C-alpha cells in the first residue's frame, strides 16, 4: 500500500489546506505498520463504554443532548445490535418505558418527556424495534398511538412537499428522512403524506451531486386566488453535505414505490445519480470524520440499488453474476475499515470523529455502521422480493393496498449477499450487516414491519 500521499497544496496555503495538513499529520501517526493488520475492534471496551452510559448514565456534558434523549438510546442500542449483543429483559423494559414517556399527547415523540415532538420518532421506533416481545401492554409497539402520529406528520407537512422537524421549527432533509422511516416501518404511508415530497428531495441536489439541507420554494399567484409551487426555481439552501446526502438518498429510495404508482404521463422528479456517485467518491476521499463512514459510505449501497455504481447484477433467480472474489463495490471499503480501526477507535474505549478527539455515543454508532457498510454487500434481491411478495396476504378493505404492498416488499427485499463479506484483519473485527435505508439490522426491520403491516415474513431460502 505504501504511505498515503499528502494532499497537494500547490504551495499556496489557505485555512483549508492548513487544517487538512494538520489533520493528515495526526492521522499518519495512526497508520499501522502492516496495512493488512490493523488493530482489532475493541469490542469489549466499546460495549463497556456504551453500557456504562446506558446503565449509570451520561456525564453532565451530555446536557447538550438533553433534547435528544431517544437519540442517545438509539445510538447506544443500535451499536449493540451491530456488535451482535442483546440487552437483558429488565433494561429492555426500562428502555421501552423511557421512550414511551416521551410520547406526546398530540402525537409523535419528543426529545424528552413533555417536550414538543420533533421527528425523533424515528429513533424511538428504531430502538423499540429491538424490544418487541409481544404486542400488548408491556410490549411497547402497540402503545405507539399511530393515528395521532399520522396527524402530527400531516400537521408538519409543507406546501412544497417538505416537513418541519417540529412545530415552528426548521425544514431539512434529516427531518424528512426520520419521518419517512417511521411512516414506512409503521405502515403509515399514504399518497396524501407523500405528495410533493419526491420533488422536494430532488430539489435539494446541488451542482456537486450531493444534497443540501433544504431548498427555498417559490409560489406564483394564480388567477383563481390559489398559489402554485414553481417547479424550476428551488434554490438549494446550504452546500452538498454528507449527512444530508445520506438522508436525501435514503428518502428518495423510500419514495420509489409511491413514485412508481404515479401517472406515467405526469412529469416525474429525478435525481442525477451519476453526479451523486462522483460527489460521494470525492467526499469520502476528502473528509475525515468517523461519522461520514456511514453518511457517505452508506450512500454507495443506496446508489447501487438504483443501478449506479453497483459491482454486479443479479438475475431474477438471484444467481449472482459475479464470483465472490470480484468487486461488489466501486469504493475503497478496505481503506475505510482501516481508518475506523486505526484512527476512529479511542484508546480509552468508544469511537470518535478523528484523533485526538474524544469518543461519544453518536460517533460510536456511525463508525460501527460505516464498518458494517464496508464489510457487507447489502442489496435489494429480486428473488427475495418475489418471495416476500408471494407471501403477501391482501386486505381488500385497506386503502392504499398497492402502495403498502410495494413498500413492504421493497424494504424487505434487501439482503446480505452470502459469501462476499470483506473483513479487514481478523474475524473479531466482523460486525453485523445493516439495512442501508433504515440503519437497523435486517432482522429488526423484518420484525417491526411484519408487526405493523400484519404480514408474515417467509423464511429466507
Amino acid at each position, binding site marked *: 500500500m505504501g504511505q498515503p500521499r499528502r494532499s497537494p497544496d500547490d504551495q499556496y496555503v489557505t485555512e483549508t489546506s492548513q487544517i487538512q495538513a494538520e489533520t493528515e499529520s495526526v492521522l499518519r501517526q495512526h497508520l499501522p505498520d502492516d496495512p493488512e493488520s490493523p488493530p482489532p475492534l475493541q469490542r469489549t471496551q466499546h460495549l463497556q463504554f456504551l453500557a456504562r452510559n446506558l446503565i449509570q448514565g451520561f456525564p453532565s456534558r451530555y446536557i447538550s443532548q438533553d433534547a435528544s434523549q431517544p437519540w442517545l438510546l438509539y445510538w447506544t442500542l443500535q451499536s449493540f445490535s451491530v456488535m451482535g449483543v442483546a440487552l437483558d429483559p429488565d433494561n429492555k423494559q426500562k428502555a421501552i418505558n423511557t421512550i414511551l414517556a416521551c410520547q406526546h399527547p398530540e402525537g409523535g415523540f419528543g426529545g424528552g418527556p413533555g417536550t414538543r415532538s420533533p421527528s425523533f420518532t424515528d429513533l424511538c421506533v428504531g430502538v423499540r424495534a429491538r424490544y418487541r416481545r409481544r404486542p400488548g401492554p408491556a410490549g411497547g409497539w402497540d402503545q405507539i398511538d399511530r393515528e395521532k402520529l399520522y396527524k402530527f406528520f400531516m400537521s408538519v407537512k409543507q406546501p412544497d412537499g417538505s416537513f418541519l422537524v417540529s412545530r415552528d421549527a426548521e425544514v431539512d432533509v434529516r427531518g424528512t428522512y426520520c419521518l419517512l422511516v417511521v411512516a414506512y416501518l409503521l405502515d403509515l404511508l399514504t399518497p396524501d403524506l407523500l405528495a410533493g415530497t419526491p420533488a422536494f428531495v430532488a430539489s435539494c441536489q446541488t451542482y456537486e451531486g450531493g444534497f443540501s439541507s433544504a431548498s427555498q420554494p417559490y409560489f406564483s399567484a394564480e388567477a383563481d386566488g390559489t398559489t402554485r409551487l414553481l417547479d424550476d426555481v428551488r434554490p438549494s439552501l446550504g*452546500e452538498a453535505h454528507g449527512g444530508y446526502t445520506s438522508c436525501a438518498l435514503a428518502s428518495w429510495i423510500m419514495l420509489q414505490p409511491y413514485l412508481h404508482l404515479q401517472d406515467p404521463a405526469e412529469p416525474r422528479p429525478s435525481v442525477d445519480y451519476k453526479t451523486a456517485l462522483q460527489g460521494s467518491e470525492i467526499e469520502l476521499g476528502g473528509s475525515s470524520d468517523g461519522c461520514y463512514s456511514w453518511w457517505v459510505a452508506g450512500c454507495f449501497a443506496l446508489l447501487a440499488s438504483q443501478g449506479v455504481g453497483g459491482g454486479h447484477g443479479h438475475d431474477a433467480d438471484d444467481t449472482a453474476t459475479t464470483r465472490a472474489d470480484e468487486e461488489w463495490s466501486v469504493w475503497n471499503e478496505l481503506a475505510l475499515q482501516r481508518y475506523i480501526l486505526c484512527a476512529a477507535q479511542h484508546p480509552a474505549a468508544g469511537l470518535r470523529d478523528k484523533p485526538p478527539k474524544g469518543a461519544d455515543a453518536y460517533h460510536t454508532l456511525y463508525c460501527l455502521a460505516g464498518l458494517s457498510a464496508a464489510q457487507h454487500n447489502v442489496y435489494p434481491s429480486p428473488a427475495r422480493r418475489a418471495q416476500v411478495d408471494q407471501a403477501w396476504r391482501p386486505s381488500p378493505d385497506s386503502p392504499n393496498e398497492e402502495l403498502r404492498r410495494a413498500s413492504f416488499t421493497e424494504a424487505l427485499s434487501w439482503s446480505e449477499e452470502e459469501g462476499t463479506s470483506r473483513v479487514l484483519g481478523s474475524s473479531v473485527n466482523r460486525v453485523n450487516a445493516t439495512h442501508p435505508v433504515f440503519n437497523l439490522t435486517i432482522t429488526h426491520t423484518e420484525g417491526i414491519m411484519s408487526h405493523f403491516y400484519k404480514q408474515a415474513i417467509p423464511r429466507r431460502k
Partner: protein
Amino acid sequence: MEAEDPPLFADRPEWADVIPLEQYEGVSPLAPIFYTSEYKDATNYFRGIVKTGEKSPRVLDLTEHIIRQNPAHYSAWQYRYKTLVALNAPLDVELRLMDELAIKFLKTYQVWHHRRLLVQQTKDPGPELEFIARALQIDTKNYHTWSYRQWILAHFNDDALWSRELEFVESMLEYDLRNNSAWHHRFFMVFQSGVRKGDEDRDGVVRRELTFVKTKLATAPNNASAWNYLRGVLDHSKWPYSNLESFVAPYSVPQTALQDVLSEDVVDLENPLPSPVAQLPCVAAVEFMADIYESKGGDDIMKATELWKSLAHQHDTMRRKYWEYRIKEALQNVR
C-alpha cells in the same frame, strides 16, 4: 471580580407561585443524563410554566437561562418565541441578544432558526447580512450560517440585498479559495436566484464565471471545490466539457511535460496556465480530460481509458475501483 452564580429558581421568592415538575414521573429512565443542579432546577420550572401556559417577562429570563446551558433545547426556544409574540416584545432587542448567543453557540440549529423567525417578523434583513458576515469571520464554513444567508437573500429577494453579494463572496474566496461553502454560495447567487438587472446576458455571465474559476485554478489547481464549480457551470449552462479542453490539458500533465501540450508560444489570456509550483498532474484535471474524451466517443474512448488507468494505478490509487468502474462502463457503452 466574578459575579456570584444566580440563585436557583427554587430559591427565588418571586417564583414561589410556580410548581416545578420533574422530567420523568414514575419512570426510572434508562440512560439518564447527570444534570447539574442548576439545569435540573431551571428545566423543572420550565415544565411548570409550560403546564400553566404562562407567557410573561420572567419566562424570558427562564428560557434564556436554559438556552445558555443547553442551546439545543428546542422546546425552550419554541416557547420563548411564542412568549415574545404574546408579549409583543421588541424583536430588535431580542436580535441583539441573539447576536451574542449565535456567536457562542454557532453550531446549534436552534439559534439560527430563532433568528429566522424574528426576521420574518421584523422584515429587516439588511443588518442580518452584516451579522452573518461577522459570524463567518469566526467560522468560515458554518453550515447554518451560510444556509441562513441564502435563505435571507432568497426569501426577501431584494435587489439591494443582492447587489453587494458578488463582492462579498469574492472576498470570502480571496481569503480562502478552497472554501467549498463560499463556492456553493457563489453558484446559488449567480445561477439559482433568477436573473437580476445587469445580468441579462446569460452567456456573458457564464463566460465571466468561467474566467473567474480558471483564475483560481491557475493559482492552486488541486482544489476540488473549484473543479466542482467549473463542472457545475458547464452542466447548468449545457456547455460541452470539450470547450474547456485547451484550458484543462496543461493541468493534466506533469510540469516537465507542459511544453508538449501548449500549441503556441503566445500567452493565452483565456487559458491561464497552472502556477509554476503547482503539483501536476492534477487528478481532477486528468478526470476532466477523460470525461471530455468519453463525451467525444469513438476512438477517443480509448484515450479516456488510458487516463482512467493512469489514475487507478498511479495518480489516484485510493479510488482505483471507481476508475475501473468508469472503464468498464465506457467500454460497455461502446459495444
